[in-house]
């Protein structure tokens, strides 16, 4: 019975639904929270769903990591595609850079205006 779970279509379905749920969690946080920190951390959670989806959909049952070791002597078609993993590595680093820049902007904004809530931002004079 357990072997039916260890099939590629089943794992792909689980990964799709899970990343959908994670994207929903991130978007709910980003849309409903008022604190700027919580908004940007929710966007980071939504980004994580993309990573899981991209890596997970390129996995197939029975394939191994694309690394030559003592047991695996040579590269073969029995290995996972290495290109998506390298692309997601790039994406993760860029996500960290953008998140850090956004958080530093929030800190400086708080130092200048003593305010961290989106619905009380009024620097451009709108909404009076």
């Amino acid at each position: 019975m357990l072997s039916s779970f260890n099939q590629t279509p089943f794992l792909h379905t689980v990964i799709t639904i899970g990343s959908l749920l994670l994207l929903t969690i991130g978007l709910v946080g980003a849309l409903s929270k008022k604190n700027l920190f919580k908004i940007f951390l929710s966007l980071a959670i939504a980004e994580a769903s993309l990573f899981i989806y991209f890596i997970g959909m390129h996995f197939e049952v029975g394939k191994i990591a694309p690394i030559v070791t003592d047991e695996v002597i040579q590269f073969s078609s029995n290995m996972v595609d290495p290109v998506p993993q390298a692309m997601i590595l790039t994406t993760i680093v860029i996500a960290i850079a953008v998140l850090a820049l956004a958080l530093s902007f929030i800190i400086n904004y708080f130092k200048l205006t003593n305010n961290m809530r989106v619905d009380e931002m009024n620097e451009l004079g709108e909404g009076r």
Partner: protein
Amino acid sequence: MSLKRNITIETLVISLLVSIMTIILMGLFLDFETTTLSIGTEVLKNNEAVTKSANAVTSVVTYFRGFDTLGEVTILFLSIFGIGLGLEGYKEKLNIFAYDNNLLKIAVDVLFPLIILFGFYVIIHGHLSPGGGFQGGVIIASAFLLMFLAKNNDFSLNHKIMELIEALSGASFILIGVLGLLIVNRFFDNFLPLGEIGKLFSGGVIPLIYIFVGLKVSAEITALVEYFIRIKDVE
């Protein structure tokens, strides 16, 4: 403030709809039928002959898409640069997140060199095992984070050495690319002897590139950690 007020039905419905549409769009763009010919199979077929690197992901990151990695490191550098612009003229800042814990203070002296050593191990073995420059750099930065948490304001970084490491490693990274352009006629091409697959001295320029990327990333993430942990102005 109750949960009901924060999350209305509207936001739930909108975010569900947006995420469903995003997934459908991704499914349209990325049609997952297993094809026999893709870039991945091509890379796996040629990797052993071209790069002699045991880790195919590393050879994609540093060799086949080396220009991409240069852009990635540039983005990381620009983000740290933008964070540094927010600093108010190198004023003395106080650490507000430190634990005043004697056990941690003693243990960190033992743990700090071990974590640094592990980070360098991950960086240097990037072409043989999972890991590499980015991962090892973050491990080294985590050692400095532990140091900041344990030793309150007694521990501070020498900014000149950090900037020197960052600048020199970034410049050497580009220098390797330009040397490849001059000698072998391709940016980030291999101009060193390839060696035997699976050994430490193999892969040509790949370990060199990853060592420089690791040094640069560790210096940058350490500066980032220091910025976020020393945030309070000295009165």
